[in-house]
């Protein structure tokens, strides 16, 4: 049986109905990984035997009625910056090439409790710093739609694995667009939740005030189910918000009457590819036909989001990554004469160039003499960005925009120009700065055949509104059901 066309929830239902066992579903995904991952390189670690053993265990629990989650027994995979006990968690870095966490991230525990079967750990830009999954120590991931192109990043492995049907759904993380942009590039759906909605305990820290874990899936319904599973207060994360897990049960009627959607006109100006602009504006028309009111407005301050983001994210990164000293875990340069040499050489050989660049930029903006001009200024503009979102949400239920200015580009095309790479984050970083949620769903294809994503941005904890709109859109369109050629070929067995 081919599960290629099934969503995670459909597979979960099939397991409940005994049409297929968790072990069979897991074996099929492992077959897909064997067939495709040599090309795609979505996985850093594949847990072939462990996954089958886990599936057997979960299957028994399902049969006894001990696990009742709609996704129980469904095989999935986890981005490699989320800690999994005794399972390699590399962050795509030489620095953590051998790191096996002694504990589970809270989300890993929640997955286990709900009977998820973990197929492996997914590739990513080193320490989640990048938008193309090219900076991984374990080699770049290819886009299943065209293997010579990037899958986006930093959760490129997560989006590519879902698109290539090498897993049914995945967890990613989003600091400045790292879930949404790869979803756009690979034609899959994803949610960047409200800051504090999902516990960050066990997520390897990049920029702590911006990082959030979220789902990547074949459609928004799968993503909503996964978000329900992983959200909720966690005493182990002091920034986790005291609030119950999400309930999306009332969001799937396809009705958008009375919903007000704002379109920031300055998101559609210079720098946006026609290939992206067209399907995104057509998507707005579709939502209008479904009953939503669409109105244009301006939001000038977001033009300053990218420089603000890089000041703040790098500042936080330089501080967070100071923990890698070659002493307690991870890479250590051998035969050092003294402690300073251990620090300097281990860090220099353990980190890749993009990570070093960001650590140095962060050290710079925090250093004496520059702090006020850069870091403090960044924090102030962050406040202004948040304020302009607050104002927009007084008028609109949500904001509609592109996810990225282009479709997936060729591997190597932008990797030598960091600034050009940073500008690719123009539509996504302001969401993290403001701490608000956004979804990315497929809304068409460019002339090059590459998928295009639509971003819907909501106010704090307005995920249900976003899911409602995204579901209504997917109910009347079929972009999210399209599959790359490599899947169609492999799917006719």
């Amino acid at each position, binding site marked *: 049986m081919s599960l290629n066309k099934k969503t995670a929830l459909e597979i979960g239902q099939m397991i409940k109905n005994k049409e297929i066992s968790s072990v069979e579903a897991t074996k099929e995904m492992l077959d897909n990984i064997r067939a495709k991952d040599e090309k795609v390189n979505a996985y850093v670690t594949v847990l072939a035997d462990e996954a089958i053993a886990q599936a057997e265990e979960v299957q028994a629990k399902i049969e006894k009625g001990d696990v009742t989650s709609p996704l129980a027994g469904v095989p999935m995979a986890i981005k490699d910056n989320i800690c999994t006990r005794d399972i390699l968690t590399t962050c795509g870095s030489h620095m953590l090439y051998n790191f*096996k966490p002694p504990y589970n991230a809270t989300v890993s525990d929640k997955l286990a409790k709900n009977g998820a079967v973990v197929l492996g750990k997914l590739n990513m830009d080193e320490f989640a710093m990048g938008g193309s999954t090219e900076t991984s120590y374990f080699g770049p991931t290819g886009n299943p739609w065209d293997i010579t192109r990037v899958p986006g990043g930093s959760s490129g492995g997560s989006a590519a694995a879902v698109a290539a049907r090498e897993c049914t759904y995945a967890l990613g993380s989003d600091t400045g667009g790292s879930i949404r942009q790869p979803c756009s590039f690979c034609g899959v759906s994803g949610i960047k939740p409200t800051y504090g909605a999902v516990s960050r305990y066990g997520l390897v820290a990049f920029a702590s005030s911006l990082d959030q874990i979220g789902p990547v899936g074949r459609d928004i319904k799968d993503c909503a189910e996964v978000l329900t599973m992983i959200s909720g207060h966690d*005493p182990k994360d*002091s920034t986790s918000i005291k609030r119950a897990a999400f309930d999306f049960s009332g969001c799937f009627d396809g009705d958008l009457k009375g919903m007000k959607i704002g379109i920031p006109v300055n998101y559609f100006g210079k720098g946006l590819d026609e290939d992206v602009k067209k399907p995104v504006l057509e998507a707005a028309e579709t939502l209008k036909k479904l009953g939503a009111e669409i109105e244009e407005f301006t939001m000038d301050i977001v033009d300053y989001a990218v420089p603000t983001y890089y000041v703040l994210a790098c500042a936080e990164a330089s501080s967070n990554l100071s923990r890698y000293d070659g002493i*307690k875990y991870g890479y250590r340069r051998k035969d050092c004469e003294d402690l300073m040499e251990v620090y300097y050489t281990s860090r220099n050989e353990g980190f890749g*160039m993009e990570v070093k660049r960001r650590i140095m930029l962060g050290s*710079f903006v925090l250093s004496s003499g520059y702090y006020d001009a850069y870091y403090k200024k960044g924090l102030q503009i962050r406040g202004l960005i*948040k304020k302009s979102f607050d104002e927009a949400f007084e008028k609109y239920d949500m904001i509609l925009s592109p996810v990225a200015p282009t479709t997936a580009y060729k591997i190597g095309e932008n990797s030598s120009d960091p600034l050009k790479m940073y500008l690719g984050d123009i539509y996504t970083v302001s969401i993290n700065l403001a701490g608000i949620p956004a979804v990315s769903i497929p809304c068409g294809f460019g002339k090059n055949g590459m998928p295009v994503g639509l971003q819907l941005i909501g106010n704090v904890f307005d995920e249900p509104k976003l899911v409602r709109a995204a579901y209504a859109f997917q109910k009347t369109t079929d972009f999210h059901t399209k599959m790359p050629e490599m899947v169609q070929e492999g799917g006719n067995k």
Partner: protein
Amino acid sequence: MTIQEKLLTYIEENTGIELTESLAEDVTLRLNMILDLIGYSEGTAETAAESKKAVNVAETGIDDDLIKYLEELSRLSLTPEEEERAKDDLTKILGYIDMLNEIDTTDVEDMSHPFPYTNNFREDEVKPSTDRELILKNAPQQKDGCFKVPTTVE
């Protein structure tokens, strides 16, 4: 670089005029006259440059001293090639970030966290911590239940 050399490079880079030896001499002569007139000396210039460093880096770029300082702050030791690349990239990035100065932020409050945020304290209960052996499993080197490092005290 002396101020005379700086001016010559500045002229060449910004006007595209190639300075012949006699032209260069002429420019230097005139500059020296101006410098004499205002009582300039290299020493005073350096102190002034030091105090102005913070505001000017976006224009002047990252120089050798600053990149070495950033390496030290970051506990990194780049190769000469990496240093050149980092200088170039960081100068470009900072030049771009400079656009933040277009926005007036007088009286705007800092926002370091997405929400008004108070610390979430847990109950002060005694709970078992992670086993020492488990933690040490990841240590690059260990001895007698401790992390081992090179000699730090003679």
